[in-house]
């Protein structure tokens, strides 16, 4: 079976600034890959390239063996399969929690509202927020909002979930509930590419950890290899600093 996501020698520049310098990466079904590295190392850019929020300058990105650089590819269709969760939640403030979750299925997949409603409520049940379904997002805590944002992505039944430092904007006491949800998702076999600063979480949940430094993929391995015995000097230095 083809890899869910495959990056080959991906280069991304913003003007003169080369943010990704030939990154290659592979995600098989049910893989949970954690991207670690300092701010500005290219983690977020890599995620945004993977769902075509950014266009790459060289290399290829493939989804299930199909190149996304093919001019016939419709970015909107790609994004229906590759969901993304953001650091700042970005819930839609004018819609209730339930309607936030319904946006994707109803307006992107054109499914009937009545038909998706039960599914959405089940998702909210799963994240423990069913009783808040009629609330507006600004009534929720940061952790709750981020869980809703994850549910909103899951409502699309994506093949791949991209998570961009989803706990970085949260109060430390609220990080746990979001990470617990992600851990559940990992155990249920959700394919995820996660940019994170939470090293313990990466160690527990990832089956591959990728270290990026200034746009270069320095090292990749299982959490055991990466955290106990990193091969590269810069990986060691980074892990020293964040520990």
């Amino acid at each position, binding site marked *: 079976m083809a890899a869910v996501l495959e990056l080959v020698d991906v280069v991304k520049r913003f003007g003169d600034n080369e943010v990704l310098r030939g990154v290659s990466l592979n995600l098989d079904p049910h893989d949970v890959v954690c991207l670690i590295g300092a701010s500005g190392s290219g983690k977020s850019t890599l995620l945004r390239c993977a769902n075509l929020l950014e266009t790459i300058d060289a290399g290829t990105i493939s989804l299930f063996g199909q190149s996304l650089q093919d001019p016939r590819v419709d970015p909107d269709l790609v994004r229906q399969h590759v969901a993304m969760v953001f650091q700042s939640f*970005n819930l839609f403030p004018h819609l209730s929690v339930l309607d936030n979750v319904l946006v994707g299925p109803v*307006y992107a997949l054109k499914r009937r509202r009545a038909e998706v409603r039960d599914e959405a409520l089940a998702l909210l049940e799963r994240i423990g927020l069913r009783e808040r379904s009629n609330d507006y997002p*600004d009534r929720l805590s940061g952790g709750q909002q981020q869980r809703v944002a994850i549910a909103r*992505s899951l409502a*699309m039944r994506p093949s791949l979930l991209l998570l961009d430092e989803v706990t970085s904007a949260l109060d430390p006491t609220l990080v746990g509930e979001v990470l617990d949800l992600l851990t559940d998702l990992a155990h249920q076999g959700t394919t995820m590419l996660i940019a994170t600063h939470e090293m313990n979480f990466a160690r527990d949940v990832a089956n591959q950890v990728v270290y990026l430094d200034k746009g270069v993929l320095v090292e990749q391995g299982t959490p055991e290899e990466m955290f106990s015995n990193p091969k590269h000097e810069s990986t060691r230095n980074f892990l020293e600093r964040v520990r």
Partner: protein
Amino acid sequence: MSLTTDEDSAPTPPQLFAPRRRRLLVGRRGLVVSALSSVIVLLVIFAIFWLAPGGPTFRSFFFNPHDMWQAFVGNPTKGLLSVGRGLVTNIWMFLLSEVLVLILGLVIATVRLSQSPVLFPFRALATIYVDVMRGVPIVLVMYMIGFGLPELNLGFLSNQSPAVYGCATLTLSYSAYVAEVYRAGVLSVPHGQLLAARSLGLTHTATMRRVILPQAVRNVIPPLLNDFISMQKDTALVSLLGAVEATRAAQIYGDTVFNFSGFTVAAILFLLLTIPMTRFTDHLIARDRNRRLAAT
């Protein structure tokens, strides 16, 4: 040396009282002060009009109850047109124009905000349109449409009443302003909203319609209302084309009877129109805010 404080060097408690002057403005005392100052201001304004050397003339010119009533109801036998009837023209003109402006303004804003390369010529056109319509005095646009279109001999287009040309002018002119208000509203929605919507696979159009515009519209209600109030008053400009609306009727009354109380009537009627509008908008804003904050 001991660092513990002894009796002598115990710190004096800090001074926490507001200055006397400011204490006057707090609580019930504040209410009394504001009521008092309002009364004084009103008295001063009233005194200026009442005690001025020309006060009596001024009052009989602008506030003569008999003339005000006459101007309001009109008098066909003397060729005096009713200001009240004239206002009906103003009302349907701005009601019609407001609906059209909301639609045309949205279209122009959407075009200006579009990104598709195919729409480039339209985008350029929309930009020029907005620049021109905001730059040319509305009176000139009114003349060009009201006197120009009939000259064209274009059947339906050249065959309308002055009031209809007035609506066309208001619509064309105010759409440019309203388009800019919409555009500012759209740009005020955080970029993350766009990213989130596009990441869900929504098309640009669906993103606009379902996510960006609903938020933008809430942001633009106050400035939009501002333009509408301004437009309500500009309906008076159709008098330049010969249409009889409230101010024109007042002017006829003034020219005939040599008393300007009709203008006062028109002013009061316009006020009665705009005040409920501002109240209504405040109500809408408050309702939206409460609904979002008080949902349990």
